[in-house]
């Protein structure tokens, strides 16, 4: 009987320890939110909400800070990265599940996953030393000569091709985020009930038509979830972009402009903001980024859960 009581105590103790550990996750989340809120309060009080996100000035001398440009830069680089990445990622998912010979499926899938495992600072190094010079010497001038002469659309390709710009940053980001959409899409495709596909083949559809009209519509939710994951990753990416974007506080006028994003601004200016309101403004940006990426990730994960994939 004595041991029974002891066992009971140990059990309760263990339960408490594990429960506390799991609550730590919530504590962390709340903690981050609260700390960011507290530190950004001075900036919020001075500039307000709309005032901050709509103001494009970032002037430490006059102590006037506005988040419009970094927020815009974050959204623009992520947007272009998604445009480049999503079709590729879907194509890869289709290739792996439908086209590739069975023996190649695992290795190719694993290789694509490796793209996500490469640390972002390596992407940054490679981007700065290898990709940017190639961009500046060959790719960007080429694009300028060809696509740049189109009306309207060509405006996107104006400006001096230095290689340190939105185009390079978005390109690198797109490569990094391919695996997230690709693996979620892949899992979703594999969950399509074979019956649906068989019946389509049965009425004479080609493989592509099955994919286009049966598989993809069925997996809409999962694919959206995967896109959301990629977007969440792109929003928060720091090091890869810091090397090749330039931290220029100006609205970009073309794909070949340098600009700033929230993460790059934080990385460059955080330890160095010598005025309190400067640091508070940086925390304000961090808070906005946190809310943005949290919301997008939450929606994405919710979609993925709904489709039953992991």
């Amino acid at each position, binding site marked *: 009987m004595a041991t029974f009581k002891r066992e009971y105590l140990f059990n309760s103790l263990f339960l408490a320890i594990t429960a506390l550990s799991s609550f730590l996750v919530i504590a962390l989340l709340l903690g981050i939110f609260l700390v960011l809120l507290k530190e950004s309060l001075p900036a919020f009080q001075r500039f307000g909400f709309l005032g901050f996100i709509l103001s494009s000035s970032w002037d*430490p001398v006059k102590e006037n800070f506005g988040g419009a440009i970094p927020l815009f830069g974050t959204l623009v680089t992520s947007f272009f990265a998604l445009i480049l990445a999503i079709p590729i990622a879907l194509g890869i998912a289709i290739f792996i599940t439908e086209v590739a010979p069975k023996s190649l499926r695992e290795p190719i899938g694993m290789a694509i996953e490796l793209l996500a495992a490469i640390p972002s600072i390596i992407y940054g190094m490679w981007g700065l030393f290898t990709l940017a010079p190639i961009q500046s010497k060959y790719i960007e001038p080429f694009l300028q000569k060809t696509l740049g002469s189109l009306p309207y659309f060509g405006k996107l390709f104006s400006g001096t091709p230095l290689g340190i710009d939105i185009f390079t940053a978005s390109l690198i980001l797109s490569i990094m985020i391919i695996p997230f959409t690709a693996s979620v899409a892949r899992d979703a495709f594999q969950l399509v009930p074979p019956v649906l596909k068989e019946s389509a083949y049965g009425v004479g559809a080609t493989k592509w038509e099955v994919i286009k009209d049966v598989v993809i519509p069925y997996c809409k939710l999962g694919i959206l979830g995967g896109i959301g994951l990629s977007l969440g990753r792109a929003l928060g990416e720091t090091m890869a972009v810091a090397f090749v974007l*330039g*931290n220029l506080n100006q609205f970009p006028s073309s794909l070949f402009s340098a600009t700033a994003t929230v993460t790059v601004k934080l990385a460059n200016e955080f330890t*160095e903001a010598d005025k309190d309101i400067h640091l508070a403004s940086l925390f304000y940006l961090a808070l906005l980024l946190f809310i943005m990426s949290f919301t997008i990730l939450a929606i994405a994960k919710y979609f993925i859960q709904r489709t039953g994939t992991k």
Partner: protein
Amino acid sequence: MKKYLFIILSILLLISCKAKEEAPKVSGKTLNGAGATFPYPLYSAWASAYYKEKGIKINYQSIGSGGGIRQITERTVDFGATDMALKPEEVEEKRLLQFPTVIGGVVISFNLPELGDKRLVLDGETLCKIFLGEIKNWDDPKLKALNPGVNLPSKPITPVYRSDGSGTTAIFTHYLSDVCPKWAKEIGFGTSVNFKAGIGAKGNEGVANYVKRTPYSLGYLEYAYAVQNKIRAADLKNAKGKIVSPSVESFKEAAKTSQLDPAKHFYAWMTNAPGEGAWPITGATYILLAKEKAEVNKEVLKFFDWAFQAGDKTALELHYVPLPEEVKSKVREYWKNQGL
């Protein structure tokens, strides 16, 4: 599972043993400093020699003058370094001590493949216009006027500035404010200003890196970085209208007319100095200490005292101007008056 735990524990044990082994060799003392990238090559060289002689580590991280000011204000480092001297009121308000260590020049580095061996001449007004984005191309008439007989290409200029909080920026923009009323009105000077044109790079290191690799770029750089990385620097027209080249002599000439006064915590600017051969963008770099940390400050001052005595040769080799002897005695007196 148990096997793995055992392996991990034994590795940890080995590492902690090795750590204990290393400890007696080192005197265990590290002083952490952070700030200006301007004197980083020099402080780094001094620290390396000091460690060899005394076994004390001076861990200096170059994060920009803005960073130096912030970190010492927050007391997260033992000393801060800045090329933008804090005004006496600010020094008092943040309860700091401030003194200069060495003098250097900010030069205009550029990458112009067509120039060959010829020199490039600029003046305050054209620099101002380049960084305002008003002069866009290398073959602009104003540049051509300053450089007759030089074949300037018709390519756009990429100005490079500091994306981090920088004392070098402060010195450079203070000079621009001196010579260019439009700059003074619209932009002003400071460690971080609202640049209108160009690309931002992190630290003097970043600017040097960028200018070195990007043709037709132009950036302001501390002299040692230009020399160490074999980057061309332009000559400037100074206050007297004379064209001067950057050198230890022209920096010395500019420093001669400055007023380094301990009563004002040595707050002074050396830009646009009136001397005949003075380099117009010269400045001193400073150390900031937290007033209340007497013990730590004593150790930091031991290092800089050593540097004042034994470090001049290294300073000259790296193209910095050591403080003149009178200033050094003023600084030592300042330390004594603060009880250190």
